[in-house]
């Protein structure tokens, strides 16, 4: 038909205000009929210049900023920043602090993947049901965060040298409840979506990313693992004592949206495994090394990274012996995961572009910072 019927390409703005951009993000798509022939990203609607602001505040004062970058996984962001400062200043964290950090980071991964999986199913057109189910489970984790840190979303819980507060007595039963109730939920989601013919038809073969392209585009996290590359910073460059825990890295087959989805589901199972081990072997002792309020790390630079739910979250800090970082740079996973968006969307339809965007799992606060 395409040879006979001629249509004019026109530009359609997916975003900034669009139900599927999960924030203020815009794809300027040139479409020919329903087919996307060019896609250009427009971002920066949420730019707050955090990197500049951080240069004016002390190292401890900067921790709340990191909450606000990736607001769906504030614990991980806190952790990455604190690790960078500890690496810069050479601070050791006590074992209890490390174990608490691991539990928190993995709980955060569960919460974030709940959101990612639910919102992705919503983008494929499942009318709100998966996202509501995912929210129901996420609530339980947010309750744990509230009990522990006093906040649900922007926790501000990690500190340089450990964590802010010790665990409360309610904490362990709540986590045990999550450990008990999560596996049935994951199985349920898997049964609801992974085997659903329509879901497979919508996601399989959509937004295929070859392993070469995935590596060359600097992708990380589930995007990279979906393409069949075994890479996880928790295994490759263990921090906070991840080397003591036994877990597997799930990797996909051919790097389409479906693979990224099942990788996220499996990562939730592995996270539960890690939480179980960390909770069983939770050491006693202090939870924080005392550090001066106006910390002055020695001159130098440090790049520390963690495996955040969206991929490699790196913090590059340069110190000039003043109490504020000389340079504070975030390597945001969702920003860099977008660099292959054009390659993935061009050639598909508009509906496919939405599915691809959902499978990247962007958080606009992190893209724009």
């Amino acid at each position, binding site marked *: 038909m395409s040879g006979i019927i001629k249509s004019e390409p026109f530009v359609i703005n997916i975003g900034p205000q669009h139900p599927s951009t999960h924030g203020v993000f815009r794809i300027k798509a040139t479409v020919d009929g329903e087919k996307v022939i060019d896609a250009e990203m427009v971002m920066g609607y949420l730019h707050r210049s955090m990197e*500049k602001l951080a240069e*004016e505040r*002390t190292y401890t004062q900067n921790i709340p900023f990191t909450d606000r970058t990736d607001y769906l996984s504030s614990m991980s962001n806190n952790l990455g920043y604190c690790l960078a400062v500890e690496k810069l200043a050479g601070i050791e964290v006590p074992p209890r602090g490390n174990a608490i950090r691991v539990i928190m980071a993995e709980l955060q991964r569960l919460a974030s993947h709940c959101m990612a999986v639910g919102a992705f199913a919503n983008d494929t057109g499942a009318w709100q049901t998966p996202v509501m189910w995912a929210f129901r489970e996420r609530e339980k984790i947010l309750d744990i965060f509230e009990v522990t840190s006093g906040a649900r979303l922007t926790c501000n819980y990690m500190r340089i040298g450990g964590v802010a507060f010790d665990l409360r007595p309610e904490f362990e039963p709540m986590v045990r409840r999550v450990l008990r109730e999560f596996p049935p939920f994951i199985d349920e989601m898997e049964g609801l979506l992974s085997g659903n013919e329509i879901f497979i038809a919508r996601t399989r073969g959509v937004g295929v990313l070859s392993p070469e392209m995935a590596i060359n585009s*600097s992708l990380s996290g589930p995007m990279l693992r979906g393409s069949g590359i075994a890479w996880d910073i928790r295994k*490759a*460059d263990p921090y906070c004592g991840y080397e003591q825990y036994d877990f597997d890295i799930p990797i996909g087959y051919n790097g389409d949206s479906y693979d990224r989805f099942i990788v996220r589901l499996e990562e939730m199972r592995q996270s539960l495994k890690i939480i179980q081990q960390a909770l069983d072997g939770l050491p006693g002792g202090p939870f924080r090394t005392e550090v001066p309020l106006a910390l002055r790390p020695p001159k130098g630079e440090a790049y520390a990274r963690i495996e955040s739910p969206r991929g490699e979250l*790196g913090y590059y800090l340069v110190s000039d012996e*003043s109490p504020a970082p000389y*340079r504070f740079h975030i390597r945001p996973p969702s920003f860099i995961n977008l*660099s292959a968006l054009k390659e993935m969307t061009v050639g598909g339809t508009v509906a496919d572009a939405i599915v691809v965007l959902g499978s990247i799992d962007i958080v606009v606060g992190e893209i724009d910072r």
Partner: protein
Amino acid sequence: MTRELTGSEAAALAEALVPGSVARTSETACYLKPEMLVETLRALRDDPAANLVHLTNLCGVDYWDHFEVVYHIQSFEKNHLACFKVEAWGREKPEVPSVTPVYHGAWMQECEAYDLFGIRFTGHPNLYRILLWEGYPGWPLRKDFLAMPGGLQPGLGEFAGVARRQEPPVKVVE
């Protein structure tokens, strides 16, 4: 555990593949010559021993008299991470060759560095201000952007027991 290559180790790798590409080394980083940057990185990416395939992080740093562009590149198979740096002198129009032909993932990070530091990446396919709008006055992450007279930093001066930053080594053109 990822092995973080020291500056001299990274320099040895680079020097073995492209002789004369290293300008100097520091403890953590290897400074490459800008004119040989793309060639060196391509060689490092394709060489099985170096195998630096994944450009993890790219960012700019303002050191008052010069800019540095920092590249953190890692290998999946060897599990090591190397830090390369390139210096760009001059505040008016700092220029660094773009590594987009080697690492496709660099294009957005280079756009960001251009947007916030004003470092021009020559050879970039589409260098535009990715976060701010076209025509935004100035480059926000430069140290002299909205600086107070006398090098006073807003905010920090009011923090108890904190000394002011040192005077900039280069006189800032207001």
